[in-house]
């Protein structure tokens, strides 16, 4: 009979200091962030060294870790200053850097001694010999390529004791990460230096040239009879229904994609995965998937969800073709600032327009949930209002069930 098992880390993205705090409050065991240089998300709100220090302190107080993604593939002119960058990251108290380029790995190891290094998924590690190569180089952990299956991870585990990190949720590259320069050639933006223009999600014309002939367009038609152009757009990943497989295969860290995503997304996804992992590890024999977790992930889904390569090579159902399934859209409408148990008044800071008559949903760490319809609403002068239209507006209204500061409020978007 299965007893409690080793608890793998749930690793969440944190594009900003606010998201770092939220991710940890919502159960993440670790977060990954970007610095001002060497990261692949040039448009995410990246961290200064001072913000890294504050973030690392917050994380460590909550028994969590912070990693810095510095996973560009450097060109000649990007090399100067890398050593100093890694030393400052180390001195800010960051727990590890996530690096892809071997030259930067070498720099981090030799010029910032003591800083732990993880191999980025951009390096496409797909076999145990590769894992052992990097462990021998001094790396603590390898983030696997997203092309690796569960059975392959199990086999790797038998041949290596380097830590294994694997993506469990979020958007996916359609190609081997790092082995795609569509963006460089089609948009003059370097995919491996933070400029990816997501050209894989474009619609392309497909052609051939019959013998001695002129080029010929190959038009395809979907099941609805409409023209369907060639595309390479992957649906997103969600492994929530397969947590036991991941843990049993020996994955040390379950990674959630999305440094560009919202506080709503980060809080929701970190909450779901940390709850599921905690429940499974506490009592594997009696673990059951809670369908509410799946529902919850759909509320922040941007595309359809799949299991990627974990159970085989993805077929056409794992790509975005044809008419898109209608996803339910939820808006993040506010954050709870206070709750008065006597008056049953909740004070909320507005993040999106909501008002009387809207069905809203409170959610908090440990998967706390409460749904209700807004029946009254007051501004900060205690004047009755119909709606809260202003960003960051502080309002209060009646909420029968106790909620907590830091809980979030969402509502189904009216026009989806």
């Amino acid at each position, binding site marked *: 009979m299965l007893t409690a098992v080793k608890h793998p880390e749930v690793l969440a993205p944190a594009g900003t200091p606010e998201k770092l705090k939220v991710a940890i409050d919502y159960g993440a065991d670790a977060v990954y962030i970007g610095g001002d240089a060497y990261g692949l998300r040039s448009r995410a709100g990246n961290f200064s060294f001072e913000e890294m220090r504050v973030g690392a302190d917050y994380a460590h107080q909550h028994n969590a870790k912070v990693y810095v993604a510095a996973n560009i593939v450097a060109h000649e002119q990007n090399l100067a200053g890398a050593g100093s960058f890694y030393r400052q990251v180390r001195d800010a108290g960051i727990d590890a850097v996530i690096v892809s380029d071997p030259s930067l*790995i070498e720099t981090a190891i030799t010029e910032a001694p003591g800083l732990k290094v993880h191999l980025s998924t951009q390096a496409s590690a797909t*076999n145990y010999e590769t894992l052992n190569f990097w462990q021998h180089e001094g790396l603590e952990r390898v983030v696997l390529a997203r092309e690796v299956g569960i059975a*392959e991870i199990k086999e790797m585990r038998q041949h290596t004791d380097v830590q294994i990190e694997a993506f469990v949720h979020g958007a996916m590259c359609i190609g081997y990460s*790092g082995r795609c320069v569509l963006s460089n050639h089609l948009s003059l933006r370097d995919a491996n230096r933070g400029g990816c223009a997501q050209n894989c999600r474009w619609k392309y014309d497909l052609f051939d*040239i019959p013998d001695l002939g002129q080029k010929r367009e190959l038009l*395809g*038609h979907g099941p609805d009879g409409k023209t369907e152009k060639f595309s390479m757009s992957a649906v997103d990943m969600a492994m929530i229904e397969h947590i036991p497989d991941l843990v049993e295969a020996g994955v040390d860290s379950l990674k959630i994609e999305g440094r560009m995503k919202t506080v709503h997304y980060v809080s929701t996804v970190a909450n779901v995965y940390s709850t599921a992992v905690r429940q499974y590890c506490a009592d594997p024999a009696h673990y059951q998937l809670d369908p509410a977790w799946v529902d919850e992930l759909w509320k922040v889904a941007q595309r359809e969800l799949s299991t990627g390569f974990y159970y085989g090579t993805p077929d056409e159902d794992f790509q975005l073709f044809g008419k898109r399934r209608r996803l339910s859209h939820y808006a993040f409408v506010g954050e709870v600032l206070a709750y008065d148990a006597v008056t049953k008044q909740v004070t909320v800071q507005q993040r999106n327009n909501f008002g009387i008559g809207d069905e809203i949903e409170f959610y908090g760490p440990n998967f706390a949930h409460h749904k209700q319809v807004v029946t009254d609403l007051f501004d900060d002068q205690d004047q009755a209002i119909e709606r809260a239209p202003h960003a960051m507006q502080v309002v209060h209204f009646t909420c029968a069930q106790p909620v907590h500061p830091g809980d979030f409020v969402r509502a189904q978007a009216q026009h989806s």
Partner: protein
Amino acid sequence: MSELVTTVADYAQAEAVITAGADRLYLGEDEFGLRLPHSFQRAELNEIVELAHQNNVKVTVAVNAIFHNDRIAMVGEYLRFLAQIKVDEVSIGDPGAINILQREQLGLPYIYDAADLVTSSRQINFWGKHGATAAVLAHEVPYQEMVPLSKNVAIPVEITVYGAIVIHQSGRPLLQNYSNFVQEHLAQTDRQRGLFIATPHHEETHYSIYEDRNGTHIFANNDLDLLTDLPKLWALGLRRWKLDGLFADVTTFSQIVAVFAQARDLLLAGTATPEALAELDRQVHELQPAARGLDNGFFDLDPDEVK
């Protein structure tokens, strides 16, 4: 020292490119190597190695696939076979294969080749410290970056000077998946099928795409042709040049190799005038398959133009 490296599609072409002036042949089988004009079985490989060595030409065998567990397990035996038939060098892009090569102690040199990922002197020297005797530079490195890079590298660098440039490798059967969805065009998705895609609003563009054992591969709009830029490479000491005949006509490819060999000889003799090179380049354009354009890729790009 200079070296012309060329791909090989069959025995006859191997003979032809050797006659044309190739110094090194590059070939292999799809189980271990990426984007090869032909997947050579071991007996065929052996014959070509013998042919090359009789003519004082070297042979590099591609072992540069991205290996999963099932295939990495076969790499050791393959490397032993290659050492036994006296292959001169292998190309490797997966560090796991380096692990095996060094454990086997076969005395087989390797050139590091990870397609678009090799972009700096420090990375090249990293692989040099890990036993690589040369490295293949990414096509996305402009000339302006090659200048400092060439001064800083400790091992030779191979530059592709002619041929198709890969810009994407997916582990998914992207064409098959599309075909399955539209229930059309199902028959064939390999290189011989000659499929290509065009970007939105640019119907004139031509990005070749095919599937094989290693997934789906997509290539740049035009084939690379650095013939008139060879003096610049020569001056930097970057003189290991690869010609890739993946999409070239099997017979005219050796003629293209001959043209580049003439350019190399002119540079060697110190008589390469811009006019002479322009004339040779005109010949390359004449020999180029009609449906495939030529340009010099990222060579002239200002590095600051790339975001």
